[in-house]
């Protein structure tokens, strides 16, 4: 037994060491291969926010398949190389470096959530590589460099839209806002909502933050209840929204629930608790536009599930990038970036052009949850 133990431990040490050495000596696999156009993807494929990463990634892959099936761009096929950032900044930086240095990609799609995206923007800005994040809504993302674009609309915009909607469409005068202090998306949307709501005659009776790992909202909701708000704004991702919504019912609050694009998917979590709520989104599956229905059909065929808005954004991002490369006629960084700035295409999430901050200008869909279904309630134009 003792011998065996010793042998095992020796082997184990050996394996670990060999692994360590192998790791150092691993060779570059990527070289500038001109037969294909290489697009690098960075998304959280595992970890807390994997749901969004996988959706965005699936959308992007679907678009690439379509493009390759119809002959690629500039007569070349697209090769999509993707790394998992786990929603973590360090991993995102590693993934970025690996894509640029080892795989020598021509452009970057990613990252999906704001923080990892913010971690790589300085690096991307330095190298000037064309980069589009499908879904990172934080205001600062595109500020790092003129080569950084996004497909989604920004946080403050969503907050304002929902505040306007609450005031004008729902005639609300008292609003309560609960937001996740550890998440810049949630914070940014909440702040914008509060500012707009108060500036336009409403009162925010309760503005409360909670931590990222929070699961028990009853204490906060008990406070909210005493204020009797007309609407309760919950700008967070749908898992958290589902938890809060159920506890809203437990505590017995009757306010109308409002949310932002993070709500997409909430029906899989707590359909009953969010019944009657409204949220804004990048697109609606109800939309009768041809691009939308086509996309939904193909997505369902490929992945056997309904596409959430992150999937649509991933899909559109590839379309935007492909169009720009086609227009530039080359994969040269500067040429592609210039073409990106002049984007004007109509795809699943609307007709997209870019403003001077490389943020998209497009419609917002407001969705009502009725009988356990998402229904397109209205479309709001940015102007």
């Amino acid at each position, binding site marked *: 037994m003792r011998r065996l133990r010793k042998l095992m431990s020796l082997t184990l040490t050996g394996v670990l060491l060999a692994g360590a050495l192998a790791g150092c000596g691993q060779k570059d696999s990527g070289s500038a291969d001109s037969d294909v156009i290489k697009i690098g993807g960075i998304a959280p*494929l595992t970890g807390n926010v994997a749901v969004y990463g996988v959706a965005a990634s699936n959308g992007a892959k679907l678009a690439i398949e379509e493009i390759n099936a119809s002959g690629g761009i500039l007569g070349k096929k697209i090769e999509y190389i993707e790394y998992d950032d786990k929603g973590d900044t360090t991993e995102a930086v590693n993934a970025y470096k690996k894509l640029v240095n080892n795989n020598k990609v021509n452009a970057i799609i990613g990252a999906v959530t704001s923080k990892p995206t913010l971690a790589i923007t300085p690096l991307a800005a330095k190298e000037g590589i064309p980069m589009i994040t499908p879904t990172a809504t934080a205001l600062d993302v595109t500020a790092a460099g003129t080569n950084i674009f996004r497909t989604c609309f920004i946080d403050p915009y969503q907050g304002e839209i929902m505040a306007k909607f609450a005031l004008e469409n729902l005639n609300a005068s008292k609003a309560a806002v609960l937001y996740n202090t550890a998440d810049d998306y949630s914070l940014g949307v909440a702040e914008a909502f509060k500012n707009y709501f108060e500036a336009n005659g409403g009162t925010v009776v309760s503005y409360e933050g909670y*931590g990222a790992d929070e699961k*028990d909202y*009853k*204490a*906060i909701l008990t406070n909210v209840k005493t204020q009797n708000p007309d609407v309760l704004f919950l700008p967070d991702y749908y898992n958290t929204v*589902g938890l809060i919504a159920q506890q809203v019912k437990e505590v*017995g609050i009757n306010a109308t629930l409002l949310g932002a694009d993070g709500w997409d998917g909430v029906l899989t979590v707590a359909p009953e608790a969010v019944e009657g709520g409204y949220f804004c989104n990048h697109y609606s599956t109800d939309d009768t536009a041809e691009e939308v229905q086509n996309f939904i059909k193909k997505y369902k065929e490929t992945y056997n599930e309904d596409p959430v808005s992150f999937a649509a954004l991933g899909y559109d991002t590839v379309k935007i990038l492909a169009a720009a490369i086609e227009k530039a006629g080359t994969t040269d960084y500067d040429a592609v970036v210039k073409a990106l700035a002049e984007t004007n295409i109509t795809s699943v999430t609307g007709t997209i052009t870019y403003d001077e901050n490389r943020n998209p200008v497009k419609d917002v869909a407001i969705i009502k949850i009725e009988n356990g279904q998402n229904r397109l309630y209205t479309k709001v134009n940015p102007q």
Partner: protein
Amino acid sequence: MDVLAKFLQQLINGIHVGSIYALIALGYTMVYGIIKLINFAHGDIIMMGAYFTFVCIVTFNLPIGVALITPVILCLLSGILIERVAYKPLRNSPRLSALITAIGVSFLLENVFFKKFGQNPIPFPQIINPSPISLGPLQISRITFITVLISVLLMILLDLFIKKTKPGKAMRAVSEDPGAAQLMGINVNSTISLTFATGSALGAVGGILYSIAYPLIDPFMGVMPGLKAFVAAVLGGIGIIPGAMLGGFIMGIAESLTKGYISSQLADAVVFGILIVVLSLKPSGLLGKNVKEKV
């Protein structure tokens, strides 16, 4: 709602979550008492309890009674298995090695469930109707009622088990002095297994109650309640069963009152702050005896 009613409401919220912490803390404290190991994997027993329940109800569609008992038994067996495979061989090794092993087991369980059930948190089926019952100005959720009831009942049963039954007494003997207990004819190994079994079963119930209250389960869901329950156990005096219960309730109430009256984000800081203050005044916890090293 007047000030008093609001306060009582927050107190009830605190007792609800506190009773779950207490149940989980019991598992930590019993194991610590008997083999002086911080069983990091205990938090994952909570997670396993939740997933097993989910599978029983959603996948196999078992009747509710069976679907709630089966996970408890499975967790109980897992507890025994974990001890036998991962901790027993290290009983005479440096204590830190056992601690790291426990962390390894915790990682393993989390990632096995991660692999099996994927990255998405899964909505937990609604077992109890969440709508509140009104008691005067207070509104108490049915979930709160049932949770507190079950927890208190289990704690009373555990207390009787440990004080009145032979195996329970054996557990106390082994945690006092394993060597002497062995000389008295107590089978130390099976007593340790029994401790893990009891702790894990309580953890499973805690996990189910936790998932009913916060119906979204994911492979890492056990980490935070596990940590807090462990802090509760230390707060009450680790190794001391009534201490774990007391600690659990204090933690729950402190958390709820902080969230209700100060700030939600500071709840963790306040909880740990209480821990620091208590340990500074009573270095071995609220109910712990201050044992001086014999010189």
